């Protein structure tokens, strides 16, 4: 068999083994709590494959995908941006407020809101980047702290400055609604569920990230710094500048996480705006092996599991079981990846040793 095909098949083992293992462990958990795993999975499968569920899967996957991209770009440089959570929430709040404050023609309005969101996300992440470079504060520590600050700051701003004046009997706290020119129509209606059109922007973003990391000099410098900072520095890369730039880009992407929900559903930042997407993004990036295509698969998988699990409540099964499933997927991907990586490495070493022998034989033939 062609070695390339063989290697590709080996890599395919990673997600397959992860899903199989996740099914096995979740089944065990279901059995332990006295439920029938077969019927649980069967109802998940039938509910999860209905058209409206598939649309919902994609809608759920889009923000996860963007979050995964934001985390992955940092991971590629060994930079752990744990602050994606705070970055996107602050970005969603401020861009929603800004979007409600202006009136622009439709495409410009959307672009304006996205730009504000990216700027806020980049700024919040940039703080961590500058702290790391100037003061040696590890980005894990600073971004976690910045998450807390973002939550507090966001709540304060919303409650005191950005809140829509309340109508009588209105309970919900939210920003002023963005006018229709600042919203995106749905791409299609599938089984009664809107398929949100931010999907298109997310796909484009994934392509941009791929090109940036694998096809540009900047991406080369970024990956080189992640692999071997010492060698990167010797090659002329300024590691400090790379840290700040990568944090800015990661934060800017993080700023876009909330946009699908903002443009397609909420049209304002409300107290029930989705949270936790930044942390889910870490899991998605890990499972997707930091590659835009892998992240897409991981985001769709997580989106589907979330959606399909809704049915479990109706069956009287706690849907928290699904959190265990996700955890097992993450762990087994990390382990399976390492195992496959070693196998592939051993094959490469063998091939290189073979090439050395051939070269030696050639030399001897020439000498003889």
């Amino acid at each position, binding site marked *: 068999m062609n070695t390339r095909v063989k290697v590709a098949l080996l890599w395919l083992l990673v997600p397959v083994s992860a899903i199989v293992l996740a099914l096995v462990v979740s089944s065990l958990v279901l059995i332990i709590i006295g439920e029938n795993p077969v019927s649980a999975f069967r109802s998940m499968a039938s509910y999860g494959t209905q058209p409206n569920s598939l649309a919902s899967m994609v809608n759920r996957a889009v923000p996860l995908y963007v979050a995964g991209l934001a985390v992955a770009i940092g991971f590629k440089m060994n930079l752990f941006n744990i602050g994606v959570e705070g970055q996107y929430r602050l970005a969603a709040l401020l861009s929603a407020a800004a979007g409600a404050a202006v009136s622009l023609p439709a495409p410009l309005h959307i672009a304006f809101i996205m730009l504000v969101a990216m700027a806020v996300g980049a700024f919040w992440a940039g703080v961590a980047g500058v702290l790391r470079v100037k003061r040696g504060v590890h980005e894990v520590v600073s971004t976690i702290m910045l998450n807390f600050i973002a939550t507090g700051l966001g709540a304060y701003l919303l409650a005191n400055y950005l809140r829509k004046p309340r109508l009588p009997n209105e309970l919900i706290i939210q920003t002023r609604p963005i006018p229709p020119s600042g919203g995106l129509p749905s791409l299609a209606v599938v089984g009664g569920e809107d398929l949100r059109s931010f999907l298109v922007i997310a796909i484009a973003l994934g392509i941009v990230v791929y090109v940036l990391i694998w096809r*540009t*000099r900047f991406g080369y410098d970024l990956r080189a710094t992640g*692999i071997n900072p010492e060698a990167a520095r010797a090659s*002329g890369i300024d590691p400090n500048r790379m840290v700040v730039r990568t944090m800015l880009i990661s934060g800017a992407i993080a700023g876009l996480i909330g946009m699908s929900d903002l443009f397609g559903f909420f049209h304002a930042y409300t107290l029930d705006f989705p949270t936790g997407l930044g942390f889910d993004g870490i899991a998605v990036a890990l499972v997707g092996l930091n590659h835009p295509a892998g992240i897409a698969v991981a985001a769709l998988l997580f989106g589907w599991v979330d959606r399909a699990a809704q049915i479990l409540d109706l069956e009287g099964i706690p849907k928290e079981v699904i959190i265990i499933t996700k955890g097992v997927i993450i762990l087994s991907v990390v382990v399976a990846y390492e195992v496959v990586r070693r196998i592939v490495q051993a094959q490469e*070493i063998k091939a*290189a040793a*073979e090439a*050395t022998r051939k070269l030696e034989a050639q030399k001897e033939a020439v000498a003889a």
Partner: protein
Amino acid sequence: MDERAPAVELKAITKTFPGVVANDDVNLTVMPGEIHAVVGENGAGKSTLMKILYGMIRPDGGTISVNGREIRFRSPKDAIASGIGMVHQHFMLATNLTVLENVVLGSEPTHGGVLDFDAARERIRDLSKTYGVPLDPDRIVEDLAVGERQRVEILKVLYRGARILILDEPTAVLVPQEVEELFRNLRDLKDRGVTIIFISHKLDEVLDIADSITVIRAGHTVATVKPQSVTARQLAELMVGSELPTPETRESTVTDEVMLSVRDVGVRVGERWTLQDVTFDIRRGEIVGIAGVEGNGQRELVDAIMGMRSPQQGSIHLGDADITRWSSRRRREAGIGYVPEDRQLRGLLLPSPLWENAMLGKQTMPPFSSGPWINRRGAHQRTDEVIHAYHVATPGPDTSAFALSGGNQQKLILGREMIAEPKVLIAAQPTRGIDVGAQAAVWEQIRRARAAGLALLLISADLEELIGLSDTLYVILRGALVAKLDPATVTPEELGSYMTGAREAASA
């Protein structure tokens, strides 16, 4: 002759790794109470042999006997139980603990389940006295000099009851004075009946300390000789199996045009000046060699020239341009190439394919990129050129760098730097750890580049290489250039005495 059973006897040991025979029919007889050296080139199979003897690797065939009894080791534990101890080249010490704590680590003395340090302290004092290895058990390892740390390692092994010591390249990390100290310790140990197996590739040292020398080449033991009956050169020829190539550079190609000029450069690290008042020029077609014991400022000098550390004093010029404040990247683009001394740490992206390694340091230049874009096709073509011109053994440019042997990795680095036709090349230890054939090829390429006008700064621990290749030779000691010597007349011995400071600056 000797009627006693050998302390260690290896017969017909064979070990194969996928694609390589690391040991093939290796025979070694070490008598009790002798210092037995095992010498060979890097990659000859010394380490594999010692790992077999210490139970870290199991041989495919052959027998091991200790004190006349045939033994099979399943793990280092078995080796330790038979009285064999290993002092690794890279120390395995917890620097924040005391000597005492480090020595007992792994075999802690207990008294009713509680650590009993007093008993251990007594034993360590006894051992130090008996074997003449002076050490205060209560000092923190962090505060110890390298030589003293090595003594901790030796003590650790003795503490576990070893009577046969394996020392893996013990002098690699020591300065000359510490080497003497170590040799005194080793002789004391020998006088007290300890058997020592000493692995090295430094022939002078081996001739100085060993009672017998076994030479290993390409996985075979080729000869066991007495130091009195061989010269260093004969020993070297046994090691490489042929007449030694010499790194001579025939006629001079030095021109008047100064390419790199280093003026009064000083580098301070913390409170200490690690580089001081260093001044020299390299002209077109000239090779300037820097000799010195490792750690005397070579690294700081390279860093200052490459822009990875800004000097607190002095200036550096490339041609007419003052590059003292330039970034590394700008210097690279202006035509300074760099072969780092530690290729894996500073020269390679191990998990990345060769073509991405071939562009490391050249990523802003054609054919590797145009504008902000990587040129994959150009990079692949250039990598193919490097692979062919420098005989890098690899299945192709998409193979990952880690899969290559050290020699091939070095060829790739040298090739990528040379093929870009730099104006100035900073080469630190360009032939370290590569086989003799590849070494000769590297020398030939350096000579050719020099003839074509390359200005080369050569930093090397190989004195023959320095003397043979350099047009001008400086000695660096404690961060200063202490002597300027004529490579045509200087001998390695003289060079050595300048390096250790035994001889003071004459013509600097």
